[in-house]
């Protein structure tokens, strides 16, 4: 078995509510695995089960093939970077990092060497004697990482550690975490509610909702081929257009939108039936502002401009179609027409890029 973490049918209930509801997962060695979900979806509970601070009501946790259910947290080959880092306030940086080594009875000289080594690796050489409170947010983050990595855990758990940082630092740390993970080769299990963190860093992302995984896939697949409407709506921006399913042909679903236009998108769920309601998801950047000319095979609809939202490369136009808001990317290379509120536009897309789900599918 070369998976570092393998869970099967994990359940953790609080009263009648299952915070973790039959979760199974398999994380191969050396992977950066993210669990992405809105707050309250049960991701923190799942992480605490893995760390051993809580016990599952059902299911098994295996780490490198060893069953972990009855192993107390201090005996698991798992270390954790806490949400608020939990650096020991009364100890220096070096003592914080040496804490785990001391528990393993590593001799002083060896300990000192390894502390210096790991500090070097995380880019904080020579800060052993500093007080964690004197460090900047980013530096503290690295100390928390070093404190875990020095123990060479099989699995490193990270509980939204970037949440407390300001935007700019967070962008930096994302990249840095990814590099550190590659450099150490440790398996990371990272939980977050920020999809951009999950997308940038991960090899695999599990999207979690109400105690279950909706989809486990590499970031790109998650973005291009969301398996559920929730994933389609949660990962990246998306437009949702509701209508009635008219026909299914060659894996393409044809929908009559509420304003009457007939459009197409790829079939994404198995519960589509003609005559029933369906929803089509199309990303803002897949929508093109077309004149009268239409590429062959493209779908199109009429929309009325509400306003334009300028945001550099992310500039968008907000329009409406049959009362539903629709966003389309406005390219800033000069190709976009000048739009004024109230004017009519035509939005077109390649049906292959749109995904259609049955509307009853939650």
């Amino acid at each position: 078995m070369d998976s570092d973490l393998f869970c099967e049918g994990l359940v953790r209930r609080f009263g009648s509510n299952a915070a973790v509801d039959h979760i199974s997962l398999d994380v191969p060695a050396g992977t950066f695995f993210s669990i992405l979900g809105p707050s309250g979806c049960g991701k923190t509970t799942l992480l605490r089960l893995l760390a051993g601070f809580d016990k599952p009501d059902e299911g098994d946790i295996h780490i490198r093939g060893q069953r972990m259910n009855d192993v107390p947290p201090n005996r698991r080959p798992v270390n954790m970077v806490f949400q608020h880092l939990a650096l020991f306030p009364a100890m220096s940086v070096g003592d914080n990092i040496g804490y785990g080594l001391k528990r393993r009875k590593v001799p002083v000289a060896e300990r000192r060497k390894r502390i210096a080594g790991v500090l070097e690796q995380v880019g904080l050489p020579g800060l052993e004697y500093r007080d964690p409170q004197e460090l900047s947010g980013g530096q503290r983050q690295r100390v928390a990482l070093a404190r875990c990595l020095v123990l060479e855990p099989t699995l490193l758990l990270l509980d939204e550690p970037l949440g407390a940082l300001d935007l700019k630092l967070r962008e930096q740390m994302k990249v840095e975490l990814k590099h550190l993970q590659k450099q150490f080769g440790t398996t990371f299990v990272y939980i977050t509610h920020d999809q951009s963190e999950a997308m940038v860093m991960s090899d695999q992302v599990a999207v979690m909702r109400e105690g279950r995984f909706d989809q486990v896939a590499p970031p790109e697949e998650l973005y291009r081929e969301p398996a559920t409407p929730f994933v389609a709506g949660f990962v990246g921006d998306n437009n949702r257009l509701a209508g009635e399913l008219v026909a299914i042909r060659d894996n393409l679903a044809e929908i009559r939108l509420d304003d009457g236009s007939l459009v197409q998108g790829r079939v994404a769920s198995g519960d589509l039936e003609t005559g029933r309601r369906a929803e089509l998801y199309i990303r803002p950047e897949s929508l093109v502002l077309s004149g009268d000319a239409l590429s062959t095979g493209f779908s199109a609809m009429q929309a009325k401009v509400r306003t334009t939202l300028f945001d550099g490369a992310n500039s968008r136009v907000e329009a409406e179609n049959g009362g539903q808001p629709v966003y389309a990317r406005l390219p800033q290379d000069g190709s976009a027409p000048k739009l004024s509120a109230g004017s009519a536009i035509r939005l077109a897309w390649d049906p292959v890029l749109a995904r259609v789900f049955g509307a009853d599918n939650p």
Partner: protein
Amino acid sequence: MIRSVPRSRLFDGLYLAYLVAFFVYLALPLLVTAVFAFNDAPFPSLPWKGFTLDWYFADGSYSADGSAGRTGLFHDDGLLRALWVSAKIAFWVTLVSVALGCVNAVLFERLHFRGKEFLYLLMLLPLVIPGVILGVSILVFYSGMANDISAAWGIELDVFRPGMTLVVMGQVTFIATLSTLVIAARLRKFDPQLEEAALNLGATPLVAWFTVTLPWLLPSIFGAAAMAFLMSFENFNTTVMLTGSDTPLTVALFNRLREGSTPVLNAVALLLMVGSALLALLVMGRSSR
């Protein structure tokens, strides 16, 4: 009323005068007590007869002009003995109260069990019982028990007769509540994630407690200890009901005071104030570091 809201000149002036008056009121009795510890006169009152250290160091022998000798505090066996009794009592009260405070703080801040709210109220109870009553009830219960046992079986339980043990018990009754509150307040601010982090890094629960939680609590433990020591040393109401033949300092001073005041009392008072101040500064210096 606050800095950003404009006030009138007159209001500011009156407010300032009030503040000054208040602090004069606070300081005056203590200042006067301290100053008269050095007045070269047999009574602590005006007029000022000059500076002397007699009320500390005079050894009671006759002076050169043959007048009656003064006995300074450091040669007054009665007071010194009482000081020692007080110190012993305060030591035991501090030890027991702080230990109880630690245990109670963990009990109420970290554990969940049925009836916790009720027990917490019981814990606060000694604060709303007058000190005299605390003393009286312990006297009635334990001394009464000793009397009954003596009458029934002829066994003498001297520990439960008025004396040092009962005084310690009586003072612990309410000082333990105070030390619990001090330590629990600090524990409440402790981030339990720190303990989890320690477990996560391989510490056993016991090691995690000693390496992470205890160092966090230490300032409050020192604070509670200093407070307990002072409270015990200065207590009168509970102590007076329970004391036996070896009187602690406050009771001894009270008895002296009823006989009439002498500057020796001022000398003791000043010594106590300086001692308390030093203890307070020591603890504050520690906690600010």
